[in-house]
């Protein structure tokens, strides 16, 4: 109990004095009641790290490396899927959606080094199915495979772009094109001119024109386009059915 408050207070002052710029944390500004530290803006800005160099293989729960992602995709898209499936452009081969590090099996939950696996998802536009394959990256085996109908995960960039292309090409794209021209003075001719967010549209009884009633089984999207370095354009009243390659307007404005 001898190292009391008096020493601690002195210590505070000393420490503040020797804290070098660049090593101080954000708590330099946040000290409630620490009078000498109350000045907002005293903390240095964050240090931006560059993207870490990737190895061929990740370790433990590391994000998948580019090599692992490509390998998982290749192993998952086997011959039959490649031959029979159809992508968002209507071409042969499944539409690539995502490749993620898979969660461990239950009996591996406490294993510090379980096998690294990837969950690879595709959408097959030929029969409107979501295909999930789990690939063991250590053995190269596809350990699990599933096909779901009526399940619509978020849209990939390629799908948002295709939806925008369909919209731009059709009469319902007039508003989008006009807004784009207002914002930029230029013509909108390609999805590349936009940044594209998209929300899955799932039909509910009575909420949409009949042409969109199959959305949910079909893969449909409501686009949120933004001019690159420019404003958002509201296109929420329009839904693009990527499975049927049709564009339609919702009843509500």
């Amino acid at each position, binding site marked *: 109990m001898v*190292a*009391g*408050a008096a*020493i*601690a207070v002195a*210590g*505070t002052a*000393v*420490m503040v004095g*020797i*804290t070098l710029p660049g090593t*101080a*944390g*954000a*708590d330099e500004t*946040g*000290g*409630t009641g*620490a009078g000498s*530290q109350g000045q907002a803006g005293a*903390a240095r*800005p*964050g*240090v*931006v*790290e560059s*993207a*870490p160099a990737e190895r061929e293989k990740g*370790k*433990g*729960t*590391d*994000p998948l490396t580019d090599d692992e992602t490509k390998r998982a995709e290749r192993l998952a898209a086997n011959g039959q899927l490649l031959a029979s499936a159809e992508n968002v452009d209507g071409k042969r081969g499944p539409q690539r959606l*995502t*490749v*993620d*590090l898979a*969660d461990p099996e*239950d009996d591996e*939950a*406490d294993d510090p080094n379980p096998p690294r696996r990837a*969950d690879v*998802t595709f959408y097959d536009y030929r029969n409107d199915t*979501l295909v*999930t394959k*789990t690939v063991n990256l250590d053995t190269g085996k596809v350990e699990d495979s*599933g096909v*779901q109908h009526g*399940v*619509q*995960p*978020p849209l990939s*960039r390629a799908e948002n772009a295709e939806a925008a292309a369909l919209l731009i090409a059709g009469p319902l794209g007039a508003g989008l094109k006009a807004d784009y021209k207002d914002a930029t003075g230029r013509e909108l001719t390609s999805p590349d001119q936009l*940044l594209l*967010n998209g*929300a*899955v549209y799932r039909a509910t009884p009575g909420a949409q024109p009949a042409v969109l009633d199959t959305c949910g089984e079909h893969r449909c999207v409501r686009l949120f386009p933004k001019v690159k370095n420019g404003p*958002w354009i*509201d296109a929420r009243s329009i839904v693009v059915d990527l499975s049927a390659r049709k564009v339609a307007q919702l009843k*509500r404005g």
Partner: protein
Amino acid sequence: MPSIRTSRARTRAAVGLSVAALAAGATTGAGPAAAQPKAAPAAAAECSANYKIEQTLSSGTTWRMCWRYDSKAGLVLDDVSYQPKGEAQPIKVLNSARLAQIDVPYDDGSVEYDDLTGFGFAQGLVNLAPGECPGGTIKSVKVPDSWDPAHPDVNGLCTTTRSRGHAYRMQGDTADKVYQAQGKDLLVYTVNQVGWYEYMTEWRFQDDGTINMNVGATGSLSYDDYDAGDGRGWPIGKDASAYATSHSHNVFWRLDFGLDGSSRTKIEQYDSAVSAPAHGQEAPTNKTTRTKVTKELAGDAKTYRWWRVVSATGKNKDGHARSYEIVPGPTTRYPGRSFTQHDVYFTEYDKCEQFASNNPGNCPAGAGKSVDKWVNGQTLTHPIVWMNVGFHHIARDEDQQPMPVHWQGFSIAPRDVTAMNPLTPDELAWQNGHWRPRS
């Protein structure tokens, strides 16, 4: 206490141990998270250094975790461990922690977004300016299918530290003696843009072992929707114009506990019942009872009820089983959907059960697509905790422009993880249990 020795070494200041623990200016542990020297032997490395976040806070507590980025959930924190100054080894808390949904229904019934599973939440990770991560480090995140194709690598993950004010205060026996400490937190956060909204996903790791997880919504209201009627919106333009449509944000977190390195945790529910004073008693009585939750459960928060997750293997130095208590935050439970009707769900681990609604995981046919369907009587051996926190946003004039951040979330707090306050100053370390004043 190797961490304190480290603090001294790094400050090169010849001051006492208690000073290092007490001084608000001892920010030695508060620099960039990646820049920490290895003070104590870490648990078996479960990720490479690039994906490790390790922070020794100035009070001597070290948090360690691994991060990755999922194509739908966004930021995922794995293998989270806590090591207060008096513990020789890190104490594992969580196998994995992540968001499990942001469900956004509008009050006029016009639309409902599932931001994680149907919208581009994860794709919408945004760059943080250096000033948005004061005192910290911004890590580069490889975003699968990032919405801006020109920037697949996003400077999007901030790790930094922040003071939270008093961790404790206690008057000593003499008038000029005060025991006090300013608490320090490790903060880990991202910002994800979904349409006009921007969501801040913040994880706050306190030096006393508490973890706070919050989602803040900011950005801009849906300004083309200012057409709601009375009872469905609020006028935020001049006079009775521009009715912003009210809506809810129902946010879900998925926590996979691995206390002391074991996933075989136990769930307990505690309820207290207050009775009127009996004859001869000065006050009402209150009786607390424990219910072991052995099967999957959809739980409802209520006053005098709480839950905890108990370690199967670990005990503290008092011989008490380590546990983490679930501390709910304010919530507006949304009655409109089956999966939002309960505050917490405890389900048996299943790797295909990933999101609280519209789950795209590869579950067998008939498994159900939302967390409420997964509560079906299974015995809990490896419980997953799903927390649902709702916020009903009735806009106000102040929401323009930008919209101030509105937060929702909850905490998990250590209960008997250590035998005493993990920040106890050394000279009080003997005051455990039924102590008597010493002279």
